[in-house]
């Protein structure tokens, strides 16, 4: 297990290195003046010159990338702007702030959104899928299957806006969505995120219901499940310890992918509910031409996806002894 983790972490570092190099090249190789772009809309000639100097435009591209990379471990200085301590992912000349500071500021919001909605869609999605598989072909199964089909064809910006209108403005049952740090006021943290959680989870719930159902139905027909029954084990025992064990693998895999995506920020959800998470940060940096920020967001997002994959593989080995980690 340890060897596996070390090897996978090394692989992850290489993956991230390649991702950041490619992203870096793409951004800085555009046939435009990167300093002019980084300077933003309100740009004076003096600032532009200062940014040029700070970005090291005169240096060749690999040297620029090397500076960016070494900044992660050593930190960088941006004369005229400020210091960027290690780990430094660059400096946003638009925000006049190190990139990482802004990302860290936004991260709890995105993480809260991910956490709450995952709990909701895992509990309800997997639960409904199990129920449907258990009551295969009966009314419960049909209701769950058709409801999940309807829900999975919904769009967040549509259901979200509708829910916002009805629950918040029309009936005033729920609070206006917004992010309050958990440490500040847990009650408000919960109330402000409840609607985004439910709406974001709605579509995921539908997918997890369908996937859990089909996996469970398949596993329940497996020979080893029949053997478990032939041994005299009780129904729930066979259902959870045998069939569910087999069904878990693919669900964990998909959850790993979803985890990476959600931690990278759900732009549409954040936009719909006006929540300032990493998704909105990415959108704003793109529209503001804040390339250092965009690069930082992409690298951080990619790290989440890569990390989530390692966690999934480790979980998979715990679930299925046939997969050996060495």
């Amino acid at each position, binding site marked *: 297990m340890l060897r596996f983790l070390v090897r996978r972490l090394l692989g992850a570092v290489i993956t991230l290195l390649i991702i950041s190099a490619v992203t870096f090249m793409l951004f800085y190789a555009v046939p435009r003046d990167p300093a002019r772009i980084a300077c933003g809309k309100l740009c004076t000639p003096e600032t532009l010159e200062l940014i040029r100097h700070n970005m090291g435009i005169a240096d060749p591209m690999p040297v620029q990338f090397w500076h960016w990379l070494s900044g992660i471990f050593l930190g960088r200085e941006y004369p005229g702007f400020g210091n960027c301590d290690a780990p430094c992912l660059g400096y946003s000349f638009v925000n006049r702030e190190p990139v990482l500071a802004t990302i860290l500021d936004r991260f709890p919001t995105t993480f809260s959104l991910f956490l709450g909605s995952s709990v909701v869609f895992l509990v309800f999605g997997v639960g409904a899928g199990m129920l449907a598989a258990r009551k*295969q*072909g009966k009314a419960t199964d049909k209701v769950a299957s058709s409801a999940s089909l309807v829900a999975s064809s919904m769009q967040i910006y549509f259901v979200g806006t509708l829910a916002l209108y009805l629950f918040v403005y029309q009936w005033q049952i729920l609070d206006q969505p917004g992010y309050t740090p958990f440490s500040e006021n847990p009650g408000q943290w919960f109330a402000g995120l409840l609607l985004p959680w439910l709406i974001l989870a709605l579509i995921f719930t539908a997918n997890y219901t369908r996937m859990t159902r089909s996996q469970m139905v398949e596993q329940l027909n*497996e*020979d*080893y499940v*029949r*053997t*478990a*029954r*032939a*041994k*005299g*084990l*009780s*129904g729930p025992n066979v259902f959870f310890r*045998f069939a569910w*064990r*087999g069904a878990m693998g693919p669900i964990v895999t998909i959850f790993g992918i979803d985890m990476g995506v959600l931690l990278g920020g759900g732009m549409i959800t954040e936009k719909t509910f006006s929540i300032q998470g990493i998704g909105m940060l990415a959108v704003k940096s793109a529209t503001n031409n804040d390339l250092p920020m965009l690069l930082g967001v992409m690298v951080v997002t990619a790290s989440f996806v890569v990390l989530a994959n390692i966690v999934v593989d480790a979980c998979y080995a715990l*679930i*299925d*002894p*046939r997969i050996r980690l060495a």
Partner: protein
Amino acid sequence: MTSTDQQPFLSIKDLKVHFSTEDGTVKAVDGLSFDLVRGKTLGIVGESGSGKSVTNLTILGLHNPDSTKVEGSITLDGEELNGASEKTLEKLRGNKMSMIFQDALTSLSPYHTIGKQIGETYRKHTGCSKKAARERAIEMLKRVGIPQPEVRVDDYPHQFSGGMRQRAMIAMALVCDPELLIADEPTTALDVTVQAQIMDLLKDLQKEFGTAIIFITHDLGVIADIADDVLVMYGGRCVERGTKKEVLRDPQHPYTWGLLSSMPSLDHPVDVPLNPIPGSPPSLLNPPSGCRFHPRCAFAEKVEGGLCSSERPLLELVDGRGSACHLTAEQRGEYFSDLAGSAAN
């Protein structure tokens, strides 16, 4: 050892198992009856889809209750199993009656160790401690001839070879000393040496515990080795019954003749091709009328009045011996000696 016991241990009476599918009703088993006493082995032979496995899954109550209709009576030691509650069946399965499945690789859980899978059956039925269950698992593995059982008990099925997996499967089925053991082609996937070892193992265990065994196979060689009585199934019905000697030496039903003549043997000349039964097993969705074998039977025209396609031949047993065929006893004797004669040439 209980040969004086007049009451059959397992008694199946007019068993019908019908599945409802989208295309209609599949009559997988259609009026099957047989008895089995303790300490004896009944071999059930037949082609794929003849209802052998379905019959035995139904005895254990492992059919899907939503889509399966079971009629008739299954009594085990005087207790009616058809319609018994799931709780009652759970207590019997793996305990008083147990089953060895054909494919041990897919039939063992890949997620649990061998020891755990054997031990949990024992724990479930005896309520013993985890430690005692583990001890018992090791003891069982030793008994079925797994080397280093104390070590291998913690292995997963994928770490076992095919023969060892089948032995583990047998250990699992025998862990509670069952009184009825159903073995569904337990040796089909194995090579002959392992096959012989496993058969010997089953025979030893039967001698020791007086277990009644139902041995399902399509291999007549295996039947000749292990069975006391033989039941030949075709299209969900029993076409012939008798002792091993009677059925193999003096078969009465044209289907059994076909099975025997399609089997290679050492005294069979190598340059004479085997004689397979023409056609394929009947559709159980829409089975042939009358005798289900008549479309493939070479002797159907010999019966007067087209009885074979219009009337179901009844199985009339005299001392547990008989066949379901419209041919008269004289006809059978004549045709079979012809067949046997032509095979010898």
